[in-house]
């Protein structure tokens, strides 16, 4: 028995070339094995939830975050209901035994760090602030899930829909801006800005030099004279002082009685192909004839 063991050790030690070959084959094999699509994917962020639900085969999805069930925030709330929700709690995630965890750049860092430390594969998706970011995130997620074709189809369909409502260069671009409770608006480098421009509007907030999401003063807004105000309410049917400011009579006057048009928040809380829905809604509002008849009545 000891002789056998010794022989084993001996052969193990003596066969250095064999070990080297084994190592090489491992290195060669691992990428091939990693390319096998993951089969137990857990997403812990609303944005990765939605891309996962759009791109993955149902049997690949192990869990999505609870936020994706909330219809005001989640575009995919309907299909999210078919999967067990998680709360991005570390113990819960370990119990799901995922072979891929999808998160956002802004997911809780301790959770991501612990998961990686324990040897789980975590991929974080960057935020999107323009169309190119959205395309990149769709393709990246599709590649992670082994669904490259589906990703390309999704991007092509989105681009086709955007192309259909794109303004011709001859059309006048009416002015608009987003106005949210507490005076928040969307300037350059936001999905709202990208969508406004794609739908043929001028974004006055961007022209005022606002970058990202910032506050716009009521007087500045009135002096900019937007022809249309848009908002994207986060929680319809609730009340707060911030939301009451949206009913300021001056806002109604400046757009000549045109009500603030509400675009569902779920279209752009995360970047995804649903931006096409938002652009279509914005383009529909632009084609409303009242803008062309009364657009620049007051100087």
């Amino acid at each position: 028995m000891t002789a056998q063991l010794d022989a084993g050790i001996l052969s193990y030690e003596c066969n250095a070339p064999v070990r080297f070959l084994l190592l090489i084959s491992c290195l060669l094999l691992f990428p091939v094995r990693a390319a096998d699509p993951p089969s137990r994917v857990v997403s812990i962020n609303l944005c990765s939830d939605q891309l996962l639900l759009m791109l993955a085969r149902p049997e690949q999805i192990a869990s999505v975050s609870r936020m994706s069930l909330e219809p005001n925030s989640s575009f995919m709330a309907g299909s999210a209901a078919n999967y067990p929700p998680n709360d991005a709690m570390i113990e819960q995630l370990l119990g799901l035994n995922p072979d891929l965890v999808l998160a956002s750049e802004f997911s809780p860092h301790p959770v991501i760090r612990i998961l990686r430390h324990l040897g789980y594969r975590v991929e974080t998706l960057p935020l999107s602030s323009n169309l190119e970011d959205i395309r990149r995130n769709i393709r990246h997620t599709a590649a992670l899930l082994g669904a490259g074709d589906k990703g390309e189809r999704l991007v092509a369909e989105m681009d086709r829909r955007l192309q259909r409502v794109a303004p011709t260069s001859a059309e006048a671009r009416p002015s608009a801006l987003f106005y949210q409770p507490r005076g928040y608006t969307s300037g350059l480098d936001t999905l709202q800005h990208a969508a406004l421009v794609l739908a043929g509007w001028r974004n006055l907030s961007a022209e005022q030099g606002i970058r990202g999401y910032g506050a716009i003063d009521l007087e500045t807004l009135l002096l900019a004279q937007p022809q249309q105000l848009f908002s994207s309410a986060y929680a319809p049917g609730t009340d707060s002082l911030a939301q009451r400011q949206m009913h300021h009579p001056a806002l109604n006057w400046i757009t000549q009685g045109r009500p603030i048009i509400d675009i569902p928040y779920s279209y752009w809380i995360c970047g995804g192909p649903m931006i096409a829905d938002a652009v279509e809604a914005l383009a529909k509002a632009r084609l409303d004839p009242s803008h062309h008849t009364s657009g620049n009545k007051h100087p």
Partner: protein
Amino acid sequence: MTLSTSGGKADYQGRLIALMAAALACLFVLSLFIGSNPIPVLTAALDAAGDTQSVIALILTEVRLPRALIALVAGATLGVCGASMQGLLQNPLASPGLVGSASGAALGASLALYSGVAASFWLALPAGGMIGSLLATLLVYTLAGRAAGTATLILAGVAVNSIALSLISLLINLAPSPYAVREIVLWMLGSLANHSMGDFWILLPGSLLGWMLLAGTGRSLDALTLGEETAHTLGVNLDRLRWRIFFAVALAVGSAVSITGAIGFIGLVTPHLLRPLVGFQPGRLLPVSALGGAILLLCADIGVRLFPAGTEIKVGVLTSLVGAPFFLFLIVKSRRWQI
């Protein structure tokens, strides 16, 4: 006190009120000239008067005018309520901010707002503020007892303010509106920005009622300076006076706070600044404090609009920055008296 000097006093009081009213009018007009963007205010006023629809007229009448009016009414309310409470409680530190009226009003108003009751009818928001204000004031008064010393009153006020603020935080965390979370700053510090004329009309009735109730208390407050016994023999019904002032403060402060949030220290500081000018008579202090409170709040509001911070700071930040050191000064002064 001879007849001639009392006649002179009335004359002096009249001149003081006229002077302060003139200063207030100047500040009110000045406040219309100041905003985030320079606009030709005179042209705007002509446009507004001539029914010409223009953006600058809109900014003047729908943005700056309500803001100035709300500052005026809320400031006057805080000033006169501070003066009457200091007179009633015979305590130099009594004021809406310290004895819980303001934080109670903020609690009541935010309860009405975030529970959804405020959406059902326009009076619900200020009514919530009034009820909250009355309950908090009564609680402090009960806790501190009738002849409370300064320290006891302050302790009771601190306790009730803390309870009210923690309940507001809890309420805001539970509020269905996601925008509610950041409004805690507003309820604690107050803001006059982005209000409409609609808000002013909500503010006005309660404030006017409160002022009218307070207007008749001057003589009783004067009598009270001679002590409760003497006041009683002079025909002052102390219980009625107490209820009348508490009720008036609740009406006025409740309305003001439900629109502007709790703006600190105006109610405390104003009467102190003006008391020497009226010969330390609480009755004469009331109208003067109303004017003084309005002047102070308009000044503070002009200050925050001129403050070069990029983004606008809340008016309560400024009043607290100026008011809190004054509060410390009062404490140091009262310590000296005790020693």
